[in-house]
């Protein structure tokens, strides 16, 4: 088991944000973390990344309790891209991605051409290789997000944790980033808002009010009943004739049901 949470809880001022969550992340899988705003996704991600110490319960990384591992050892295994991490420093794209090598460098192992190559590779993977000299504050939100991802890739993790990596991205880059993450030969845990994007995960975990409601393959977990109970929307499932994949359509609760078969495909 790569990463395992046991009875995780996090409480601030006697308000429980995360309650009693237990889950295991399997080697090589892409696990989606879903849930409405305020359901505890980001808090759970931070505890899984070892940045936030849980109020109760434990996180184990490759069988060892995370609290007992040095930060450097954790960072050599696990990379985390948080939401909204910005800076006022006049830092270039190259500098920002080079930070990803931090857990591998020391006085005895200084920067080497191998690190240059890893950073170059990471920049190319997120399609930012042409912008290495650009300053951080001149980048668009989407470009900044891609730089963060490149930094995490430069860390060469075996587990990658991403908190809403497609926020701020246009649709092309949303698909590109998720495709890239999915193709990585490593274990990934991704907090997502877009439930259709979650359909591409191997498994999804759904949170509501800080609790784990369900975990399993998306086609089994993401049912119309769960959408109604957790997300307060009415969902209908359509089939894309191009590849027979399921697409979820959302409507507010209380609107009359539409028979999906009546929806005409417009191929003009």
């Amino acid at each position, binding site marked *: 088991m790569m990463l395992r949470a046991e009875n995780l809880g996090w409480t601030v001022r006697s308000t429980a944000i995360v309650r009693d969550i237990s889950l295991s992340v399997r080697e090589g899988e892409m696990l989606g973390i879903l849930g409405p705003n305020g359901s505890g996704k980001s808090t759970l991600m931070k505890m899984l990344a070892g940045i936030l110490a849980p109020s109760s319960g434990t996180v184990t990384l490759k069988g060892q309790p995370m609290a007992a591992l040095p930060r450097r050892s954790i960072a050599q295994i696990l990379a985390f891209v*948080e939401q909204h991490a910005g800076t006022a420093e006049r830092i270039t794209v190259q500098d920002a991605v080079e930070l990803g090598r*931090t857990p591998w460098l020391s006085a005895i192992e200084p920067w080497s051409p191998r690190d240059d190559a890893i950073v170059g590779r990471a920049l190319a993977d997120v399609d930012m290789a042409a912008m290495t000299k650009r300053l951080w504050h001149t980048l668009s939100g989407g470009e900044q997000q891609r730089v963060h991802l490149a930094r995490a890739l430069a860390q060469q993790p075996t587990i990658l944790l991403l908190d809403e990596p497609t926020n701020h991205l246009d649709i092309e880059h949303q698909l590109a980033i998720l495709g890239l993450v999915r193709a990585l030969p490593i274990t990934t845990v991704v907090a997502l808002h877009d439930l259709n994007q979650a359909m591409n995960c191997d498994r999804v975990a759904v949170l509501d009010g800080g609790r784990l409601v369900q975990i399993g393959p998306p086609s089994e977990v993401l049912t119309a009943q769960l959408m109604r109970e957790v997300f307060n929307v009415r969902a209908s499932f359509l089939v894309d004739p191009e590849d027979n994949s399921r697409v979820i359509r959302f409507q507010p609760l209380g609107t009359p049901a539409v028979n999906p078969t009546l929806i005409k495909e417009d191929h003009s």
Partner: protein
Amino acid sequence: MSFFVSDRAPANRVSGYKRRIVLYCLGALLLLLVAVAMGAAIGETAIPLDVIGKTVANRIFGAGYTLDPIEEGIVWSYRISRAIVAASCGAALAVSGAVLQSLLRNPLADPYLLGLSAGASTGAVLVTVIGIGGGMVSLSVGAFWGAALAFGLVALLAKAAGGGVSAQGTGQIILAGIAGSQLFNALTSFIITRSANAEQARGIMFWLLGNLSGVRWDDVWLAVPVAVGGVAVCIWHMRALDAFAFGADSAASLGIPVRRVQVVLIAITALMTAVMVSLVGSIGFVGLVIPHAARFLVGVRHGRLLPVTALTGAVFLVIADIVSRTAIPGQVVPIGVITALVGAPGFALILIRGRRMR
């Protein structure tokens, strides 16, 4: 997507890198020597450089050159020691400023942010005006303990306000520092207005603005090890400081033991600042402006930034001291006045140029 990257590093590139570092270090040392030599040569009585060289040779190697004993005395006992302390102080204050700015992610952070200079002045006033210690305690010692006490209070307050120096606590420590500074400044003013005579008040005022006049070799043996050791500890943490660019959480996810690094670096900057303030008073602007100037020169990566900041701070303060001694004949202008007079317009220029660079 492939994670495979060749392991073989071209050896010549790495050794070239090492050679460059050695060259830079030698260059920096040379620049420091030139600055100290200038500090020794320039003054009310100009002393030729060969006399300075011979004085150093006499004192260190026992060379036995025949020199005017008065000139030799001025160079050795006053000017060289003074220039070395100025250089140490400039390096320590500038690096402290750079480290605090990065660590607290606040461009306005400076070494006095944590209440140190305010505490030092209260300590100095307690010794000189109230007479605590009964003449056994020097102004420097009083200032040092005042600074240490103020820092302790600020750290406690920041911790009580939640977070201490933790990931979320950087705002708290800045606010606690402001509160602490206000308190100790008020205490100092209170003591001066209540108890000091006009002459004492003027003396304190002069000391507060920075004063290298009383510096002797004893002070060198304190200032140099503290500055060199402190700057070395900060440079040792260069990668950790880089990792704070996107905040403490991001640094933690890059493998930095955030709390330990924050405690070590804040403690070391507080120690450096307290020692320097106790030796020469609170010289403003160096810790705020020099790091920003250095960022414009070499960028934000601390591997380059900290050495350049240290060198620039050292040379700047030696020159500021020369100006403070020579600007008005027969009178010493407080060095803090010089650093602010030069620093403020210099900083304005940097800001304007920086805006154009964007």
